[in-house]
């Protein structure tokens, strides 16, 4: 069913099936741009763990969302652009009950799928119109529109706002 998963994803992402590889195939067949996010999980009806490596260009081709908000870690209103997490998960067709997100420094958090909505969180790849460096909590940052509702201003949400994101696992 590998082919089907890849095919479906290809339709969704407009990408070649070549992006898909087993966890053990460390060397891609063609030189690929730098992977910035790895999504792994079980595709529906498949017992094996599929891994999807996404580079910046692929993320930017997905549905984009943009909002401005202040955060407790920055000064002033920040404008974030990125992919809604739910959209990303739907596209990859992995299923599970929660995701585990990892940062470069191996900091990790869990988000139940039921807590993920169309609007929030997003996987931001731009802040104030510029790509984010590691120093600026990049390249990816799970952010919520904190100013829009008190429900995004809880400690749980702050904890889930993981920066320097590089991996997402969908688990049961």
């Amino acid at each position, binding site marked *: 069913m590998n082919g089907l998963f890849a095919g479906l994803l290809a339709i969704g992402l407009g990408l070649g099936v070549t992006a898909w590889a087993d966890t053990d195939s460390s060397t891609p067949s063609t030189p690929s741009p730098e992977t910035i996010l790895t999504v792994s999980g079980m595709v529906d009806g498949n017992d094996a763990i599929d891994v999807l490596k996404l580079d910046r260009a692929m993320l930017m081709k997905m549905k984009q969302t943009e909002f401005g908000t202040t955060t407790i870690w920055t000064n002033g209103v920040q404008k974030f652009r990125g992919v809604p997490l739910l959209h990303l998960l739907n596209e990859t067709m992995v299923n599970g009950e929660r995701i585990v997100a990892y940062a470069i420094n191996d900091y990790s958090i869990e988000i139940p799928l039921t807590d993920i909505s169309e609007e929030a969180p997003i996987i931001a790849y731009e802040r104030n119109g510029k790509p984010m460096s*590691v120093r600026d909590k990049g390249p990816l940052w799970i952010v919520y529109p904190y100013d829009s509702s008190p429900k995004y201003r809880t400690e749980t949400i702050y904890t889930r706002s993981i920066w320097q994101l590089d991996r997402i696992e969908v688990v049961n």
Partner: protein
Amino acid sequence: MRPRLRNFLVLIALIVIVFQIGARVLDVTDRLEQRASAPVDSVQWTLSQTEVEFFKYQIALEQAQRTGTTDLSALRQRFNILYSRISSLLEGRFYSVLVERSDQAQHLEQLRNFLNNTVPLIDGSDAELLHNIDRMRSDAQSINLQLRNLVLGAMSSFAEMSDQQRNDVTVVLWELVVMTACLIIALILLIWVLSRVVTTTRKISRENAEGRARLEAMIQTSQDAILVMDELGRVIESNEAASDILGYDQTELHDHNLADLITPEHLQASHHEGLQDVLEIGEAQLVGRGLVQVEARHKSGRVFTAELSVSQANSDGKRVFVSFMRDISDRIEAENTLRQARDDAQAGERAKADLLAVMSHEIRTPLNGIMGAANLLRDKIKETENTRYLEVIENSGQLLMHHVNDVLELSRLDSNRAPVQAISFDLATLLRDLVELQNPNAEASGNHLHLSTIPEDIAWVTGDEKRLQRVLLNLIGNGIKFTQSGDIQLDVERHNNSDMVEFRVSDTGVGIASENLEKIFDDFVTLDPSYGRKSSGTGLGLSIAKRLVHSLGGEIGVESEPGEGSLFWMRVPLPKSKASLPGDVYARATAQLPTHAMNILVVEDNDINRLVICENLQRSGHTVTEASDGESGVQQAAHQKFDLIFMDISMPGMDGIAATRAIRKGATPSCDTTIVALTAQAQPEDRKRMKDAGMDALLTKPFSTDQLEAILRGDLQDSPLTLPSTIDHHILDDIKATLGADHALALLEEFEDELASCLGANTNMQTADSFHRVAGSAAVFGLVGLHGILQKLESAAKENASRDRLIGDARTCWTQTQPEAIAYLKTD
């Protein structure tokens, strides 16, 4: 304080409290919401993580120094992660908290410097980075302590903050507790107020119910039928009495039209019209008119008289009629019986009075005959014996005549036929004349009659002189009658300058027993029958006097001591008046004809007539001289001065005309005396002869006492010798000149129609207004005679007096006047 006001204030207070609580709750909610938004994420984690990253960076530095270039990318990664951590501290919301502490701000500044100094090395080439590793390690070493202090300081700051927040929460919770307590108190207060309201309401409703029950009891026990009807006249409520009176039970009454039920058949139509009026105009025939009597029908069909009052009320915004009804058949019947009894009694009384009057009158005529006959006999009978009998007849006749006259006068006074006069006269003169006149009578009984000094304020007064004189005459007469060889005194005085004049007639006679004092003014009272023969009387004198005094608005009374004498007093209102001026027509007449105590000559061949006149005159206190034929009349007039002469016209031998001529011709004392003709027939030509002969007035037989009295008063107007002219030719001339004869004649014809309709058989047309109008028309034509009669008709119509005679006069007058007026208008 009144309960309503108190409740109101409590309510206001409650509302204020609730508002306060509401405001507090909102405030607390707001703060709780603020609490819900965490200002920072896990502080301990963030701070410790920063340290962890710093240590990892130091390890990476060591690693790079040891292994060389291979691990430089790892070093760079570590630095970048550390950089982002520290920049979070520098830029995030910690910062604002941290910089409040000056030492923290210093640490932060040093951290920033450390980053800024390190960045160029990290971003530089690998060689340069390796070259500087040593310095970077020492930098890191030196900043380590700063970071440590920063973290510790921040931890204590956030611990304080946390404490502060907990305190805040506690305060908020306390406020909530207090507010809840307040709310509970407010609620308890509210419950208290509500319970009071409920209690009050319950009390009011209980009182209402009691009041209603009482009202209900009143209504139900009322003897009057009480019916409440809606606008259409349908019975809404009724009481038991209504069922009793109308015969319908309550179910039969309710929702039925009362008018249909109880209006008798013959009144149905009009009642419905009345009700229709109520509905359309809103004005009821019966509503608000108080008690009215109506005919109502019982269920059995019996019609009875009911007393009904209907009033209008509003019930729930609708108009209702409340009707009280009472069956008054019994009362009406009782009233009718009473009225009938009263009418019967009055009719009986009237019949008695009439009988008395008629009898007296009828007795008088034959009595006059007897007296006349006795008088004739006197000349023919010479025997002493028979003369004595004749005297008895004459005395008895005189007495009987006196009685009859008394009774007649009494009935006349009772019927109030004679109006009370109010004329101006000289009271002092009246009293002097009266005493002078009665002196001979007094002296005949050996009495002396005195008049005490008349006070100055007794002079000209206004009143009924004639009646006053009658009473005084009666009192003086009584005094003389019941006194032998004693004194009779007349006193007069005015009360305190008021209108009231008191007269006292005192005598030294037999007196009256005290038990009789109250009776003597009653009718037909003679106290001493044994005395009667001498002082005969009907016993009517004093009752007549009493009636006269009362008719004058005065009072009369008596004090007496048997054996010592009596004192009769009377008080009569006699307001002072001015002495009549010479220019006054009436005063002239009275001057010519003294109204009191006149010396009068009656020349009349008919004994009965003469007797009647003389008796009348004598009773009025006049001195009368009789003459039975013309010659003796002339002789009497030649011998003394008379104040007035009554002269019969048709007499055997010298008639009244001739006698008058003789009197006027001779230079005798009475040649200027007023002569009044007495005749049954007075044709205009006769009148002319009388006037030519020198007569002053005409009294047509039979004449009334009033006419006679008018003559005695000097009022000759009603007894004119010449008929008034019926046409004023000057006015008629004017009309003729102004309108022309033809037009005037046409107008006269119109006037005839007007007069005919006014005098016609239809009494409805004979109104005061119509007489007034026609009288005006008559005056326009100068028909003065007719005008006068019509004016009298007008006032008669106003007084609702009988007009038959006047209408006859008017017709006669018109019949005589019309041809004359037409003839006058037609002549050039």
